[in-house]
């Protein structure tokens, strides 16, 4: 009998070329931990930075190599736990490039002398030891953390069952919680942000898990396709299904910082070290919406009539919260946080369109938004005064007179966030809104346009402030960025303008068709 059982145990099919990018990223994350343990302190920064860049480039290369002979409809692998299809590959590519940009920001040691991260985050803020570490080099643990998180995000966007999705969610979240608390300056607020993010994130995970359990109770399976099949044709009680969807979606919307589940994001965006904020703002958004798209399209499409109304409401609330509350912000990082809440509302509109156009539009929007956000935070990290970053909006007055280049770049980025033509933001909004219109969501698009008009006002306020005011005497200066930050900013601005003027190539690529399940 034992023999018979041994024969029954089968190793699931592994499509190595398909999942090579994930394996590379997660494998390198483990190697990175070993680096941290065994390399001398002086050698770590170079080794970790090199490894991270190499990993992301290598994973990108593996992705490109696979892209050549990938089956058109995609494959499922790992016993159906992962679905590697066109949308997943697009999201992976987006994540890898944005991740690379974030790693460059994290590695910069010139903007903040010694790096943006504390040398020893465990020391209590304000003590003698803490003051002593102010001038030492940063710790490099942030690199393995970022790699783990990125690996989690990649799995999250490709997971084909809810349990894989949950584990990926935790793998991507736990490192982020930690990374938020690593700031070198203003450590108390950074640690507060980390704790808040962790506590609220734990609640969101609990919601997700509860929803998962209910859906399992409903469908008898955690596979997205099985849930879809169960919902499509059965006389089972819908109570479990809808309660499950509701709770699951709360967890997902929390990660994507869609209002009214956004409450953590302004505090965390403000407190976290700016490179980490950039990473969160760009990559987490991509991963969360990638997951939302997949769950909605694959598992819940048959029931879309029932839940769509609720998500209309959520999208409206999110856009209004983001646009209106953004008006009163006095801190630039908080302002960008609220702007991201408004953008999450726009993205949600694209996500619930559930058409090929809607998917393509959302993917394109994610790509453009990610690059713009990354560069926005990179520029924010450059404007500094004696206490570190000068995030008070009022202190940005007259920046154009001190540093026309930085002000010009920031203007382009803000215009992209506002969705002005000839920036990527306009094309993104345009494709999302037209997909929504085609799917019969005209009222939602009206509100979205109103919200973007209101939101444009606070982007504009900063432009006016930078160009039309005289700089203050003791105002902030723009520090010279190191090479890594420069690369990220240049990349972000180039993509923002290029995709605004010549969007065709990427638009073609973003038409990915359906998910495989």
């Amino acid at each position, binding site marked *: 009998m034992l023999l018979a059982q041994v024969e029954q*145990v089968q190793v699931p099919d592994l499509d190595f070329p398909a999942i090579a990018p994930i394996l590379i990223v997660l494998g390198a994350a483990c190697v990175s931990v070993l680096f941290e343990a065994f390399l001398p302190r002086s050698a770590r920064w170079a080794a970790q930075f090199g490894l991270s860049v190499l990993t992301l480039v290598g994973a990108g290369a593996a992705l490109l190599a696979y892209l050549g002979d990938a089956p058109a409809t995609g494959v499922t692998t790992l016993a159906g736990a992962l679905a590697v299809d066109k949308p997943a590959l697009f999201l992976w590519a987006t994540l890898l490039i944005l991740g690379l940009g974030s790693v460059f920001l994290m590695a910069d040691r010139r903007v903040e002398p010694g790096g943006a991260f504390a040398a020893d985050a465990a020391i209590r803020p304000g003590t003698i030891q803490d003051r002593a570490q102010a001038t030492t080099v940063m710790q490099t643990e942030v690199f393995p953390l970022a790699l783990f998180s990125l690996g989690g995000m990649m799995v999250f966007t490709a997971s084909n069952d809810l349990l894989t999705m949950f584990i990926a969610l935790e793998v991507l979240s736990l490192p982020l919680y930690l990374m938020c608390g690593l700031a070198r300056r203003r450590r108390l607020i950074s640690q507060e942000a980390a704790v*808040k993010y962790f*506590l*609220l994130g734990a*609640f*969101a995970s609990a*919601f997700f898990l509860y929803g998962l359990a*209910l859906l399992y*109770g409903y469908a*008898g399976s955690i596979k997205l396709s099985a849930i879809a099949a169960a919902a499509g044709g059965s006389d*089972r*009680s819908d*109570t*479990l299904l*809808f*309660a499950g969807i*509701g*709770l699951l979606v*709360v967890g997902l919307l*929390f990660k994507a910082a869609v209002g*009214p*589940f956004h*409450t*953590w994001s*302004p*505090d965390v965006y403000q407190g976290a070290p700016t490179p980490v904020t950039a990473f969160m703002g760009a990559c987490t958004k991509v991963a969360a919406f990638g997951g939302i798209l997949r769950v909605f399209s694959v598992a819940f499409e048959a029931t879309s009539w029932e839940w769509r109304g*609720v998500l209309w409401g959520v999208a409206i609330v999110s856009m209004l*919260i983001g646009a*209106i*509350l*953004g*008006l*009163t*912000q006095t801190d630039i990082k908080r302002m960008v946080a609220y702007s991201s809440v408004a953008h999450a509302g726009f993205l949600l509109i694209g996500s619930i369109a559930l058409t090929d156009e809607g998917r393509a539009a959302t993917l394109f929007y994610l790509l453009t938004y990610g690059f713009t956000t990354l560069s926005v935070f990179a520029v924010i990290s450059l404007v500094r005064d004696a206490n570190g970053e000068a995030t008070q909006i009022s202190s940005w007055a007259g920046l154009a007179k001190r540093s026309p280049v930085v002000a010009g770049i920031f203007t382009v980025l803000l215009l992209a966030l506002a969705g*002005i*033509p*000839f920036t990527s933001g306009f*094309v993104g909004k*345009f*494709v999302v809104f*037209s997909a929504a219109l*085609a799917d019969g969501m*005209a009222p939602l698009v*009206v509100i979205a*346009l*109103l919200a*973007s*008009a*209101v939101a444009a*006002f606070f982007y*504009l306020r900063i432009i*006016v402030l930078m160009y*039309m*005011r005289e700089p203050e005497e003791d105002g902030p200066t723009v520090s010279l960025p190191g090479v890594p930050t420069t690369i990220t900013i240049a990349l972000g601005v180039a993509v923002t303008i290029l995709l605004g003027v*010549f*969007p*065709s190539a990427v*638009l*073609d690529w973003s*038409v990915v068709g359906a998910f495989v399940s």
Partner: protein
Amino acid sequence: MLILIAAHFLVAALLPAVAARWGRAAFVVATLPPAAALVTAVSWSATVLNGAPPTESLSWAPTIGLDLTLRLDPLALLMIVLVSGVGALVFVYYAAYTPPEGIGRHSALLVVFAGSMFGLVTADDVFSLYVFWEFTTVCSFLLVGGLGLTRAARRSATQALLVTGFGGLAMLLGLILLGTAAGTFRISAIVAYPPSGAVVEVAVVLLLVGALTKSAQVPFHPWLPAAMVAPTPVSAYLHAAAMVKAGVYLVARFAPGFADLPAWWIPLVVLGSWTMVLGGVRALREHDLKKLLAFGTVSQLGFLIVLLGVGEHVAAVAGATMVLAHGLFKSALFLAVGVIDKRTGTRDVRELSGLGARWPAFTGFVVLAAASMAGAPPLLGFVGKEAAFEALLGEPFVLAVLVLGSALTVAYSLRFLIGAFGSKPGVSLVDSEKPGAVLAGPVVIPALAGLVLAFAPGVVEPVIAGYASAYPVAEPYGLALWHGFTVPLLLSAVVLGGGYLVHRFATGHPGRLPEALHAQTGYDRVVMALDSVARGVTGRLQAGSVPVYLGVILVVAVVVPGAGLLAGLTPLPRTQWFDSWLQVPLAVAVLVAAGLAVLARRRLTAVLVTGVIGYGIAALFLVDGGPDLALAQFLVESLTLVVFVFVLRRMPTRFTEERRPLTEGRWVKAVVACVAGTFVAVLAVLFSANRDGLPEASVEYIQRAKEDAGASNVVNAIIVDFRAFDTVGEIAVLAVAATGAASLILASQRARRKADR
């Protein structure tokens, strides 16, 4: 045409460098692109009028159907004459007018604006139209704001941008809805084969919001007078001749397709007439010559909107003629105000006196322009107004309002002339040198054009008729100064006479408008309300407190699915409260412990009480016959307690030193917590009632437990037999984690010992 637009932007890019090197000469260079545009457009006029409008197209993003398509038809040609012709004049004028600073910025922006305006009037697809539309908005913002040195400039610029930007977005939505309904985004195709349906009505209203904001119609008009803080040539070009005409242009462009819809003509006629009268009344109250003209522009734009909006052949002829006439006389008048301002240093009618006697020739030309505005013969304004009265003879009510508005126009034209050039008793005569040829020329040319074209309407008539041919022709109408003794002629006489009387009356009774009638207050209130709502909500919800954040999430999670469940009216299953008497004291103990845990002030007490909850639950498992579960729960609880005690050693004994008062906020939190808890409990009951039998896996496990594993407890069989590999894995993970935790504790102890030594 694409090359012309590109040339505008290219020249604009070079202008700052030119200005830095050669100063004022930059404006001469700036004249080149609009002049070239004018010449090219006029040279194509034969093709245009033959009914074969030249079209150019550039593919931008074919995937999503974004193209840049330009088309030169009679309406576009008419607008180009205004936009590029007046533009070239204004640039020449600006060279003499400008102060030395800011030349590069202003010239570049003005050329960008001229190029955008050219693109706007030739655009034949909705996206190019929108893009150029917003370009003009942004240029206006930057030109009005200037260098942003004064609060008034910043405020006015922002208001202009907000109002017109809002309108632009509404227009975009309207255009997209129209395009979706029509199945094409080509404007010429949409107008030729207009779609119909409820969506189209909405789309048309949205489109009109764009037109009405841009053309400063009631209730959006206050931005235009406020924008008069801009330099006078900018006002002459943007806020009289070109940009504010964009709204009128939009109406003219779409009217042939949609003028039959009530949603189209009712708002246009009502708001246009209202604006015409209101603008006229306000113009009679202003002392600043520029503001007077600005309200005059508001009034005239209302007139144009009515004419072009009604969608009828003669009205279209009148409207197109008036667009041209207005562009000519208003730019001449604005530029004249600029001359007066520059030479005398003031444009207040109470301080100017005797200019007419000192500058007789210049005054003569300005009188020509003002008379054209008043609609006096023999000028183009008169020709247009005659046509307008003729067109609206069948609509007595609208006609009456227009006659009233025209009388007001005569009145403020008189007020302008007398205020600027007349001699007033008690005011010292202004003594200044005469304007030079470069300053006066751009005033003289459009003023003269108004006179010449009135005698030779044949020059422009083909273009105007080309536009008006979009409507069915009942009887042909020829533009002329003399149609014989007709009703319109009588009306013109009434207007001129009435206008004189109104002017007499108004100068005798200077009064003020009640505050409530100022639409500016409305704008201020909207902006302030938005700000205060944002502040209030932020202060309440984004307080930085984790309980509040959690509360928001919980409330949403309760309300949304809760409402869904209630709406679905899932019946509560029949439940019995307890199975065994033992459960009652246990449940009570758990509840009491939960309450104590919240109220406890010592950390250790709270932890212990939490432990009681866990043990209570474990006991409930035991009662239900799950000793294995209960055992696991006991173990976990004990372990958690130990870990807690380890940590608590290093923390203060109490949560807070003082006993916290029971404030309202804490009650709210308590209520939210209780509601959320109860909700989850109810859900649990609902869900367990809604399960359909046992899942397949369970059935199979239960079947096979006895025969395959020889076990009477299924759970045991699953753990040690069916899923033995999983169990081994779990044990391994636990072991690794425990080793790690233990080594951490040991390591820190060793470190402390070292430090103690």
